[in-house]
């Protein structure tokens, strides 16, 4: 649970880097990028197994976007697909036996999503993306729909949502993975060899569900920003 913190000084400010998170994050990115490159090499009309798997994964994103956003939904696929694939790889990495590698200061390698800095960064990327998508499709109407009392109150509520949405996105993913790690280590102390295994199986389910939830909420936020109210 401890992080390997490395402090650098940039312009008189001390910036702390969690090196173990950076390492595992790059590893997850490496896995996703290698999968993408290998599965799109030698594309053919009669796909081999890897290409068929990649196609069905992409079909999942297209189908979900189709059901939740009505118009111009294809252009949001890159963000949604990369978020989902990165989060699922990162979450599943937490169940690998990475703890046997001991780092400095008692730090352990674990899933990169058990660091709130990473999940906050992803949530802020989602915030910036949906605000810009909303401005692009609605213009100034994205902020204030109508000049009346209810319109201004709703605008203030939406301004508040700009803070609460990324906060809840970040804390939801972080807390699920973090609680999973703590649960595994507690069961490892209480009843080793028997209890951790079902808990880890449950954590695999949680990894899939949380990646899906993050993706669904991203799509819902983009949809609410882009679509006109009826």
């Amino acid at each position, binding site marked *: 649970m401890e992080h390997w913190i490395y402090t650098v000084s940039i312009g008189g400010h001390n910036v702390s880097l969690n090196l173990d998170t950076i390492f595992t994050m790059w590893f997850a990115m490496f896995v996703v990028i290698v999968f993408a490159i290998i599965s799109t090499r030698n594309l053919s009309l009669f796909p081999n197994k890897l290409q068929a798997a990649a196609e069905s994964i992409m079909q999942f994103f297209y189908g979900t976007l189709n059901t939740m956003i009505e118009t111009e939904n294809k252009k949001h696929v890159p963000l949604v697909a990369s978020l989902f694939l990165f989060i699922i790889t990162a979450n599943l990495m937490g169940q690998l036996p990475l703890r046997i590698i001991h780092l400095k200061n008692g730090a352990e390698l674990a899933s990169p999503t058990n660091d709130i800095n990473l999940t906050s960064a992803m949530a802020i990327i989602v915030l910036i993306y949906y605000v810009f998508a909303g401005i692009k499709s609605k213009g100034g109407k994205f902020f204030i729909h109508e000049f009346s009392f209810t319109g201004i109150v709703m605008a203030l509520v939406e301004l508040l949502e700009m803070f609460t949405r990324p906060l*809840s996105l970040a*804390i*939801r993913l972080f*807390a*699920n993975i*973090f*609680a999973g790690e703590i649960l595994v280590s507690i069961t490892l102390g209480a009843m080793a060899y028997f209890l951790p295994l079902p808990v880890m199986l449950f954590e695999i389910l*949680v990894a899939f*569900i949380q990646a*899906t939830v993050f993706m669904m909420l991203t799509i819902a936020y983009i949809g609410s920003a882009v679509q006109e109210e009826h």
Partner: protein
Amino acid sequence: MEQTISQMAHLGAGIAIGFGAVGAGLGIGFATKGLMDAVSRQPEVAGKAFGFFLLGAALSEACALYAFVIAFLLLGK
């Protein structure tokens, strides 16, 4: 005095995770009730409804995990 603040923080951590778990338990219970109602009324939607149930259960479980994060922050005090 320092001792007392630490003890109170541990008490607060217990209270936080306790009340948080009540809300999440109720939420997942209602979600399960909804799933059971839907499946018993229309057994053919079971697969589709289970996906939505998992989504809703994960969302309401997250509320308990917010409380868990607060409890963990309090434990460090």
